[in-house]
C-alpha cells in the first residue's frame, strides 16, 4: 500500500522543502518515494501543489482524485481547492491563516474566509487546524510554517513517519544554524 500526500499552498510558502523533508525521511526508512512539484510561473504567488507518494506500488508521481490519505495545506482556500484529491475519511492538516491574493481586491472573486472554514469543517471529519499566526508569534518566525505543519501531520499519525524521522531529515537538509528554530517548530502544538 502506498501513502499518498498532497501538499498545497501559495507560491513561495515552502511546500517544496516540506515535500523534500518527507521524501528524505521516507528514504531513510528504505521506502520508495515519487513526488511531483509545481515549478515555474505559478511560483509567483500562484496556487501550488506537490503530490508525494510513498511505497513501491505507486506507478507514477501523480495520484488520482479521491486517493490522498493526507492533504497538508499551507493556506485554507488551497485546502479546499485540493479537497477533491482527498480519499473518503482522509485527513486534512491546514494552516488557518488566509493569504488574500491581489485579484480579490482588483475585481476577482472575494476571499470568503468564513465560507471556506465552514466548508472544511463540514466536509472533513479528520481536520487538524494549525493556528499559524500564533505559531509564528510564539516561535518568533513565520518562516518555519512548513515544519510546524509537518509536526502536526506527524502527530495526526498520517505520514507513517515519526517526529524523529523528520528531525533527521531536517538535520540532513538544513544548515546547522536553522536546527534549533526548526526543532521547536516541529514540536510546536
Amino acid at each position: 500500500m502506498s501513502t499518498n500526500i498532497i501538499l498545497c499552498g501559495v507560491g513561495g510558502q515552502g511546500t517544496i522543502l516540506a515535500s523534500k523533508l518527507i521524501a528524505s525521511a521516507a528514504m531513510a526508512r528504505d521506502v520508495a518515494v515519487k513526488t511531483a512539484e509545481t515549478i515555474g510561473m505559478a511560483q509567483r504567488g500562484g496556487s501550488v501543489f506537490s503530490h508525494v507518494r510513498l511505497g513501491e506500488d505507486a506507478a507514477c508521481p501523480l495520484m488520482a482524485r479521491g486517493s490522498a490519505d493526507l492533504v497538508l495545506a499551507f493556506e485554507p482556500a488551497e485546502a479546499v481547492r485540493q479537497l477533491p484529491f482527498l480519499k473518503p475519511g482522509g485527513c486534512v492538516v491546514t494552516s488557518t491563516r488566509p493569504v488574500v491574493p491581489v485579484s480579490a481586491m482588483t475585481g476577482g472573486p472575494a476571499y470568503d474566509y468564513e465560507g471556506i472554514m465552514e466548508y472544511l469543517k463540514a466536509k472533513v471529519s479528520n481536520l487538524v487546524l494549525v493556528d499559524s499566526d500564533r505559531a509564528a508569534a510564539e516561535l518568533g518566525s513565520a518562516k518555519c510554517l512548513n515544519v510546524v505543519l509537518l509536526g502536526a501531520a506527524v502527530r495526526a499519525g498520517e505520514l507513517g513517519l515519526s517526529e524523529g524521522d523528520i528531525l533527521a531529515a531536517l538535520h540532513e537538509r538544513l544548515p546547522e544554524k536553522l536546527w534549533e528554530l526548526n526543532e521547536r517548530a516541529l514540536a510546536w502544538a
Partner: protein
Amino acid sequence: MHKEFLMGNEAIALGALAAGVNVVAGYPGTPSTEVLETIARRRTQDVYVEWSINEKAAMEVAAGAAYSGARAMVTCKQVGLNVASDPLMSLEYIGVKAGMVVMVADDPGPISSQTEQDTRTFAQFSKLPCFDPSSVAEAYEMIQEAFELSERLGTPVFFRATTRVDHGYESIEVADEGEWQHNQPEGFVKDSSRWVIFPRLSVVNHAKIEARNARLSDELSSYERNFVVPGAGECKRLGIATHGINYAYVRENLDAENHPRVLRVATPFPFPERKAVEFLEGLDEVLCVEELDPVIERELTYVCGKYGLDVRIRGKLTGDVAPSGENSVESVGAAIAAFVGKEASAAPAPGDAPTLPVRPPVLCAGCPHRASFYAVKRAMAGKKTIFCGDIGCYTLGNAAPLDMVDTCLCMGAGIDIAQGVFHVEPDTTCFAFVGDSTFFASGITGTINAFYNQADLTLVVLDNSTTAMTGHQPHPGTGRTMMGEVVAKVNIEAVLRGIGLSVVETVDPLDHERAVETVRRVAAEPGVKAIIFKSPCVVLAKPQARSVVDPEKCVGCQRCVKQLGCPGLVPRDGKVVIDESLCTGCTLCEQVCPFGAISGGCRIPVELPGGERA
C-alpha cells in the same frame, strides 16, 4: 552505485555526466532549466557548460564540439527548439562525430509555455531519432542510451521529456563519479567534403538518412524499452498504445486480472514498426493514450493500412482522448474505462464548495517591473499608445491593475511587433518592453531592424540584472558565467549606442517622479530611443528596510492597492496594512500615497551611468 532522491531533470544531467558528456550548452526555459544547472553543479573540472545567449547559439556551440569529437548536449524547452531549428535542420544533413543529444522539455497543458507543440512531431519533420522516457529512473538510463545511439549513427538525437518527468522526483540508483565514462575528444579534423554543406552533399546525405531511418525502425523494434505487455482476462482482443508519463497513467489504471495488451513506445521516431505489427496481431481495437500530437495513433493507422491489418485504431483523432491539454491519472482512467466498456469509477463530487479566490501568478511585492510599468502608464495617460510586451516575469504586467502588456508572442517579438504597428498607425506612440536576458537572447536584431527601417518607438529595457522567471540564471550583462568565471559585462546602453541610438537614458524605476519625467521626455523624441529601467530583482536583493502604514494618516482610499496591485499591500478594516513578510521597502507605495501615510522603506541603491547612485 548509490541512491539519490532526484528531480527528472537532475537525473537527466547525471545520466549525461555518466555517459561522459564533455560540452553542455542551453538557454533557460521551464521545464528544462534544471538539467544544465545540475550539470554545472555536479560536473567534473573537464566538463564545459554554458548558458548560451539563445538556443540557436547553444545548438551551434554543441555542434562544433561534437564535430571535434566531444560528447555534447543542448538543453532547451520546446519553444526554444524553434529558435534552434535553423542549425538543427541542417546539422542532420551534416551529422556529428561524437554523440550529441538535444534535450528538449515539452510542456503539455501548457503549464509555463506559449504552445503545446510536440517534439516527437519535430523529430519526424527533422528526421532525428527521438527518445521519450516514462519516469525519472528511466530518464537516467535512456539519456545514456541516447548518447550511444547518436555516436554510433553519427547523428544528433532528440531526448524529449515532458513536465511530469522533468519535474517529477524519484529515489533512484545512480553511478558514483568514479564510474562515469570518460571521453577524450579527438579534436576537429579538417575535411571540407564532410563539414561544409552544399546542395550536392545534401542530396547524397538525404538518401543516406532515409535508408538509415528505415534500418533503425527495425533495429528499434528490438530495443528493450519498446515493449508489449500481454493482455489478461476478457480484454485480450483490445490494446492500448502509449508513451512517456502516460504509460505511468495507464499502469495506474490497469486491472491486474483483466486488462488490454499494452504497447509502450519509447522511440516515437523512427517508429518501431515490426514491434507494432507484433502488438497489433490478433487485436480488434487499439486505444492510443497520448499527450500533445497523435503520433502513435497516426503511425499505427499507417501500419494497419500498410500490412492490411483489420484493427480499428482509436485515440485523439476519433475523439476518444482529448485532442489538447494535459492528461491525468483520472482522465486516462476514464478513457480506458470507456474503451473496455466499464463504468468509470466516479470521482468524488465537488459538491457545494465556496467560491475560491483566483491566484494568477503576479509580480512579486517590491518588483521593480511594477514601478517601470506604472511610470510609463502615468506618463502616457490619455495618449494613443501600444505597449508591446515580451517573455519573462514582466509578461505579468498584463494583469489588473497595471494592464500594461498589449501583446506578447515569443522571445524578442515585442520590438518588431511595435514596428509593424507603427508602420500601420504612425500616430500611435509605440513602446516595446524587453527584459535584460531577452534583450541579449533576441532583442538586439529587432532594435537594429527598427533603427535601420526608420521606425518610431521607445524601447524600454527592464534591467533587473538576472534571468528572473526561470530562476536567476546569469547572462552577458551579469559578468558571471556558468563555469564560475567573472568576465567583462556586456553593457546594454553601450550596445544601443553602438547601434546608433542617440537617446538612451538609464533611470531607477523606483525613483518614481524622475522615471515618469524621463518617459515623457524620451517618448517625445523622434525615431528609435531607449530607456533602461535599472533595479535589481527583489528575489536576489536583500531588503534594507520595510514600509509601514501610519493608521492615523491612512484614510482608506486604497489608491495604493488599486493603482499598484502589490501583494504586500493588504486592505484591512477599511484601511491598508503592509504584509511585512512580503514588503521589500521599495517605497513605490510611499510615493503614490497622496496622504503621506506610508514610510520607512529604503530603495536598493542602483549604480547609474556617470557614477551617480539613485
